[in-house]
């Protein structure tokens, strides 16, 4: 547990010292949201219909943009190697890093979702559900993205490779995440996709750190 806390605190401080890394993905998110009314046309009904999907896809892309540097700096300055060869469990260190990563990407993105919703004429009663689905889905996304980031840690300019690896893994989260706000249109229950999102989150918290740790060990050795 102390490993988790120290790793979380260290990354949190490191992130605060580089505000651009936090702000850039969020600015990207809002910027692209504002492009949709220009590209699709300003009809409120059309925009409201696509709003949850747009917000969710952009959340995936923002996670993709921000995760690339997650292990890169630690890899370059050697602290990742110390983490891997150290005696303390890598699992909790990885979980701490992922939590800190979520606090600066997924959490603010969830808080910004209402703004994106208003820009896309999302009905007010849907905004809360969109935020809830993002709050449950973005931690899973951060953990899955971490697997890709760890696998490509030693690869020069691994950006497109990273996208290729993790975007297919995001598919279930995207489907159930958007289903939470779309069900009103289909008349089905919201509980089912919400419960599935919780299940995906529980599974990824328990399993993803193992995959990330294994990938980091491989990355450090090469």
């Amino acid at each position, binding site marked *: 547990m102390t490993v988790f806390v120290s790793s979380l605190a260290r990354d949190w401080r490191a992130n605060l010292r580089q505000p651009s890394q936090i702000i850039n993905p969020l600015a990207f998110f809002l910027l692209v949201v504002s492009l949709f009314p220009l590209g699709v046309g300003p009809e409120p009904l059309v925009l409201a219909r696509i709003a949850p999907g747009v917000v969710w896809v952009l959340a995936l892309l923002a996670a993709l943009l921000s995760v690339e540097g997650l292990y890169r700096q630690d890899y370059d300055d050697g602290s990742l190697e110390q983490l891997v060869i150290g005696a303390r469990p890598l699992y909790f260190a990885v979980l701490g890093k992922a939590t800190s990563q979520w606090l600066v990407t997924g959490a603010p993105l969830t808080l910004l979702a209402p703004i994106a919703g208003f820009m896309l004429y999302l009905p007010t009663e849907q905004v809360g559900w969109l935020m809830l689905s993002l709050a449950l889905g973005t931690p899973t996304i951060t953990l899955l993205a971490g697997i890709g980031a760890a696998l*490509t840690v030693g*690869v020069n300019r691994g950006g497109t490779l990273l996208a*290729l690896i993790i975007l*297919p893994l995001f598919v279930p989260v995207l489907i159930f995440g958007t289903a939470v706000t779309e069900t009103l249109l289909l008349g089905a229950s919201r509980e089912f996709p919400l419960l599935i999102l919780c299940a995906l989150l529980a599974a990824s918290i328990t399993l993803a750190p193992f995959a990330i740790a294994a990938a980091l060990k491989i990355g450090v050795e090469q």
Partner: protein
Amino acid sequence: MSSGRETDSGAQRKPHGWLKTLWHKLGSPRWFYDIGGRWLYGFGAFAVVLLTIGTIWGLAVAPIDYQQGNSYRIMFVHVPTAIVAQSCFMLCGAAGMVLLVWRMKMADMALEAAVPIGLLMSALALASGSIWGRPTWGAWWVSDARTVSTLIMLFLYIALYALRGAIPRAEAAGRACAVLAIVGLVNIPIIKYSVEWWNTLHQTSSFSVVERPAMPASMYLPLLLNVIGFYCFFATVLIARMRTLVLKKESGARWVQEL
């Protein structure tokens, strides 16, 4: 290059000893190269015979479907390629686990050899399904459960292929691919069910090797022959590719240079 000599470790006397011996032998590139040369001809001959009979039977002899007309005949290619593409992914995941747990060199080669075949098979399954979908569903592409999950599988194959190419050191590349194959293996059923609940148009499977078929024997039997034939074809190509990889990776070993 010490492997190739750690076979026959006295496991024969135990129950299932032969299985353990086979397992140990499979870890030896040299043994695989020798025995693979013989398996290659066996699987190759079966593939040629089964695919010839199955395809001619399916395309020329099998009756016309009362609803779909002749267009249903593409299933004699579509169904086997889709089945083999999925099995190939399971093989990749299993090889990945074997590689990470036992560090078996042959598992790495199996993973490396299988990925391009699976990529091709899933691409063929998608292409043949798309050609069938045009007259039957009225569209080249319909985003439904099966098509999307097969497409995602294709992307995972591409990712596996690209990841191996991107990491310069071969051993690290193999183990990174193993991690990705296992993660993909866990994720494939999740993707499959998530897209099934999301949107479904693709008919459910009416084909199974063990159950009574829901279609007449005149359609079912050629399909069965083609499925087994495609499996044999897959095994042939896999073994041929693995033997090439053995020669490439063991090129420093004496037995390779003596060939």
